[in-house]
C-alpha cells in the first residue's frame, strides 16, 4: 500500500461525510413535504406527475396498500422492460440494427428482473445486444425507478419508528415522485455534465469505423452513455452501457470521473443516515449508523487493497514487479486499468459491493483470492455497508432490530429501538428477510454445482451447469457462489468469467434477484406497519442507548457474525482455500466438467 493510495481512500470518505448533512437534511425536508430551495424550480413537475398518474398528494396508505403500490410499480416496470427489449428491432434509435435475435426470452426475463430489482446484473454485452432506445427508454428509466422505490421504502420504515398509533406509513406514489423529482433527477443532470466534461460520450451516432495508425480496421461503439452513467452510479444500479462497465474509457475516462463515480454511489446512502436521524428527531442515531458503515467500509477496503497490492505470488515468481514505484503501480494488474492502478481499483470494488451498485472498474474475477473475498463478503452481509439507495438504510435498520434483540436477550429485557418495543412480529419479520436471502444464495449455488443438463440442449448448452465456469479449482466455486450472492443481494457485479447467458442461469439468477428484493422488503414493510401502530415508550435509566460506541460495536458485530456464520463454510471452500493454494503455487487447468459428472 502506498501513502498516496491510503490518502485517496480517506479523501473519498471525507467527501461522503461532508455531503451527509446538507443532502440528508434536504431529503428529510423533501419527504416531510416541506418546501425546499428546489421547489420554485421543480414543483410543477411534481404536480404534473400526480395529475398524470391520478393520485392525490394528501392521501396516505397503510403498509399493505403501500406494498401493493410497490408491487404494481415493479410489475409494470418488469413487463415494459421485457416487451421493449424483445421489440427493439421495430423501435427507433437503433443504428446498429439489433433485434430480437440478440435478446432471447430468457435473457430478456433476466434483464427485466435485474433492472426492476435494482440489481442490474448483465448477462448481455451492452454494445453488441441493445439498441440506444432500449438503453434510454427502459434501462435508464428503471435506473431511476428502482432507486426511487428503494428510497421510498426506507422512508416508510423510518415513519414506522417516528409515528405513534397510526395505521399509515405514507404514500408510495408521492415518495417515489419526490425522490425522483427533487433528489435523483437534479443530481443526475449535474453528474452527466461532469462526466461528459471528463470524456464520457453522449451521442446517438452509429458506431465509428476507422483505420488505425498501423492500418488496421477498428470499430468504436458509441451511444448516450453520460446520461445513463450518472443515474447508474447515483441510484446504485451499476448496469454498464458497455460490457466492461466503468472500466471502459468511455464510461470512466479519468481518475477524476472515477472519484465522481464512487462519490455518487455512496452519496445518497451516506446522506440517508442523516435523513433518518433528523426524521426520528435525534441526529446521533443517524451518525451511529454512519459510524458503523464507515468502520465496516474501512476494514473491507484495506483488506482488499493490501492483498491486491501484495499481488499474485505465481506472477512474482515470473519476475513481475509487485512493489509500487513512482513509475508503475505494481500489484495484481490483471483485469485492472492503469489510470486507476491498485488503490482505486480496490477502493472501487469495495464501494460498489458495499453499496448495492455492482458497477466495476476492474474485474473482480481476476482479483487475488482474499482481495476477491472482500466484495463477496460485503454482499453477503445483505448490502448494509452504506448499501443501495434506501436499501442500505432499511437493511441496516433490520440489523438494528436484531442487534437490540440480541442485547435484550443477554440482559433479559424486552428490546426497544427508538422508543418502540421490538416484539415477536418485528423479530420474526427481520429473520424471515435474512433466511430468505441466505436460502436463495446457498440453495441455488448448490444446485448449480451439481445440476447436469444435456450438452447442446436447451437449458444449458455447455452441459452441466458447473461447466460454464471460466476457472477451475476453488475459483470455479467462487464464480458460481459470487453470481448467486450478487443476484440475491441485488448487487449486479460478477466474477464475470462464468457464462450466465443460458436459460438455466438467466432464469435462476432472475429468480434470486426477485427473492432477494421482495422477500427482503415486504417483511420490512410489514414491520414498519406494526411499528407505526405502537405507542412510544419513554426513555428510562434502563433504556439501552442506541447512539453510542457500544451500540455501534454491537451492530457491526451482528452484521459480521450473521454474515460469517451463514456463509463461512462456502467461503472457506472458495476464496479461503484458494488463498492457501495460491500461496503454495498451485495452478489449475480447466478439466471438461462434463466428464466429472457423467
Amino acid at each position, binding site marked *: 500500500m502506498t501513502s498516496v493510495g491510503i490518502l485517496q481512500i480517506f479523501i473519498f470518505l471525507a467527501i461522503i461525510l461532508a455531503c451527509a448533512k446538507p443532502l440528508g437534511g434536504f431529503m428529510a425536508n423533501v419527504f416531510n413535504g416541506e418546501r425546499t430551495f428546489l421547489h420554485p424550480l421543480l414543483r410543477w413537475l411534481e404536480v404534473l406527475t400526480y395529475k398524470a398518474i391520478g393520485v392525490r398528494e394528501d392521501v396516505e396508505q397503510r403498509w399493505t396498500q403501500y406494498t401493493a403500490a410497490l408491487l404494481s410499480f415493479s410489475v*409494470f416496470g418488469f413487463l415494459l422492460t421485457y416487451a421493449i427489449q424483445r421489440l427493439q428491432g421495430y423501435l427507433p434509435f437503433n443504428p446498429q440494427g439489433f433485434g430480437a435475435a440478440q435478446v432471447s426470452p430468457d435473457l430478456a426475463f433476466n434483464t427485466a428482473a435485474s433492472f426492476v430489482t435494482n440489481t442490474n446484473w448483465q448477462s448481455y454485452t451492452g454494445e453488441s445486444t441493445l439498441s440506444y432506445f432500449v438503453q434510454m427508454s427502459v434501462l435508464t428509466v428503471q435506473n431511476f425507478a428502482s432507486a426511487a422505490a428503494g428510497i421510498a421504502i426506507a422512508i416508510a420504515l423510518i415513519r414506522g419508528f417516528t409515528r405513534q398509533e397510526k395505521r399509515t406509513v405514507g404514500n408510495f406514489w408521492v415518495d417515489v415522485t419526490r425522490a425522483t423529482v427533487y433528489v435523483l433527477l437534479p443530481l443526475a*443532470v449535474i453528474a452527466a455534465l461532469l462526466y461528459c466534461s471528463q470524456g464520457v460520450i453522449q451521442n446517438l451516432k452509429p458506431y465509428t469505423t476507422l483505420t488505425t495508425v498501423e492500418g488496421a480496421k477498428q470499430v468504436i461503439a458509441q451511444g448516450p452513455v453520460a446520461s445513463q452513467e450518472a443515474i447508474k452510479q447515483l441510484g446504485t444500479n451499476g448496469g454498464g452501457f458497455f460490457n466492461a462497465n466503468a472500466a471502459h474509457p468511455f464510461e470512466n475516462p479519468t481518475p477524476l470521473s472515477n472519484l465522481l463515480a464512487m462519490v455518487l454511489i455512496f452519496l445518497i446512502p451516506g446522506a440517508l443516515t442523516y435523513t433518518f436521524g433528523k426524521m426520528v428527531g435525534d441526529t446521533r442515531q443517524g451518525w451511529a449508523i454512519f459510524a458503523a458503515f464507515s468502520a465496516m467500509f474501512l476494514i473491507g477496503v484495506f483488506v482488499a487493497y493490501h492483498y491486491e497490492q501484495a499481488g499474485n505470488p505465481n506472477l512474482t515468481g515470473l519476475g513481475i514487479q509487485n512493489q509500487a514505484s513512482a513509475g508503475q503501480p505494481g500489484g495484481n494488474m490483471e483485469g485492472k486499468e492503469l489510470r486507476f492502478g491498485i488503490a482505486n481499483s480496490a477502493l472501487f470494488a469495495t464501494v460498489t459491493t458495499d453499496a448495492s451498485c455492482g458497477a466495476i472498474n476492474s474485474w473482480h474475477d481476476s482479483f487475488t483470492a482474499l482481495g476477491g473475498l472482500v466484495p463477496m463478503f460485503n454482499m453477503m452481509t445483505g448490502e448494509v455497508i452504506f448499501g443501495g439507495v434506501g436499501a442500505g438504510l432499511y437493511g441496516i435498520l433490520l440489523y438494528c432490530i436484531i442487534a437490540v434483540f440480541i442485547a435484550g436477550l443477554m440482559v433479559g429485557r424486552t428490546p426497544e429501538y427508538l422508543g418502540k418495543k421490538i416484539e415477536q412480529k418485528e423479530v420474526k419479520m427481520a429473520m424471515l428477510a435474512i433466511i430468505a436471502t441466505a436460502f436463495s444464495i446457498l440453495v441455488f449455488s448448490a444446485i448449480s454445482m451439481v445440476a447436469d443438463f444435456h450438452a447442446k440442449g436447451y437449458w444449458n448448452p455447455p452441459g452441466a451447469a458447473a461447466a460454464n465456469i471460466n476457472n477451475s479449482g476453488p475459483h470455479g466455486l467462487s464464480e458460481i457462489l459470487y453470481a448467486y450472492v450478487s443476484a440475491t443481494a441485488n448487487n449486479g457485479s460478477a466474477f464475470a468469467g462464468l457464462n450466465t447467458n443460458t436459460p438455466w442461469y438467466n432464469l435462476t439468477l432472475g429468480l434470486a434477484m426477485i427473492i432477494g428484493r421482495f422477500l427482503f422488503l415486504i417483511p420490512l414493510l410489514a414491520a414498519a406497519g406494526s411499528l407505526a401502530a405502537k405507542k412510544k415508550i419513554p426513555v428510562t435509566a434502563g433504556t439501552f442507548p442506541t447512539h453510542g460506541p457500544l451500540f455501534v460495536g454491537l451492530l457491526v458485530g451482528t452484521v459480521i457474525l450473521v454474515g460469517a456464520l451463514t456463509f463461512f463454510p462456502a467461503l472457506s471452500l472458495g476464496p479461503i482455500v484458494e488463498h492457501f493454494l495460491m500461496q503454495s503455487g498451485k495452478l489449475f487447468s480447466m478439466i471438461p466438467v462434463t466428464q466429472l459428472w457423467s
Partner: protein
Amino acid sequence: MWQQILPGLRIKLFMTVVLGIIYPLAMTGLCRLLFPRQANGSLITQGDKVIGSEIIAQNFTKPEYFHPRPSVAGSGYDATASGGSNLGPTSAKLIRGTTKMDDKKNEVVDFDGISLRIVHYCVDNDVPYESSVPLDRFKTANGDLDDVKLIKAFNDEKAPLVFTPRAPIPADAVTASASGLDPHISPESAQLQSARVAKARGASLDQINRLVAQFTEPPELGILGEPRVNVLKLNLALDRELARR
C-alpha cells in the same frame, strides 16, 4: 385495489417519456453544446480521416511505435467487445497460456498467457533474461519465436520451461487491462520500450525519453490515480517529430 395498481402503469409510461426520452435527449443536446469533442468520443483526425480515439487503445506492433497493454477485448482491442480475461490468480491458462486446434487441424495459440508475454517483452525490448532452455530452440524456420512451442514448453508437467527476466517487469506491461481498451501504459513500461523505438527510428534515446516525459500525465490534482502515458498520443507525436526509418 385498482386504486393502487393503475397508477403503476401510468407512472411507468410517464417516466418513460420524461426520464427515458426527454432526459437523455436533452443531455445529448446539452453535452454536444458544451463538450462537443468529448461527447463524440474524443476522436482524433488526420486530414479528414478519423484515425482513433484519444481514450481508446488501438494496437501497435511495429518496433518504431510504443506498444499498449495486452488486450483480450474480442480478438484484441475490439471496441465493440470490451472486456478482460476474467482469469483468476490460480489459473494455469492465465500464467502458462493454452493452445487449440484450428479448422485446418493446425495447433494455434488459444490464449497467450503471461509467461509468453514476458518472453516477448524481454526479447522485443532487450531486457536481459535467463532461460532454462535457450530460446533458439523455439524458433520457426524464418527465425521468429514459435508461440505454440513456447506455450507447450511452459505447460510441460515434467520439465517446464523456466524463463526469468533479470530486470523486474512492470506488472501493467504483461497483464490484460479490464476494458481491453486501456489507452495508457505506465511510465516505467514506456522507458523500457524507449531504446527499441529509438533504434527503429534512428533517433537518440534522449529524444525519445524527452517525448515520453512530455507525454507522461501526472496523477490528477497531484494525487488522484496513477501517472500514465497515453500510447496513441505519444506515437502520433513520434510520427510528427521523428521520421520513420
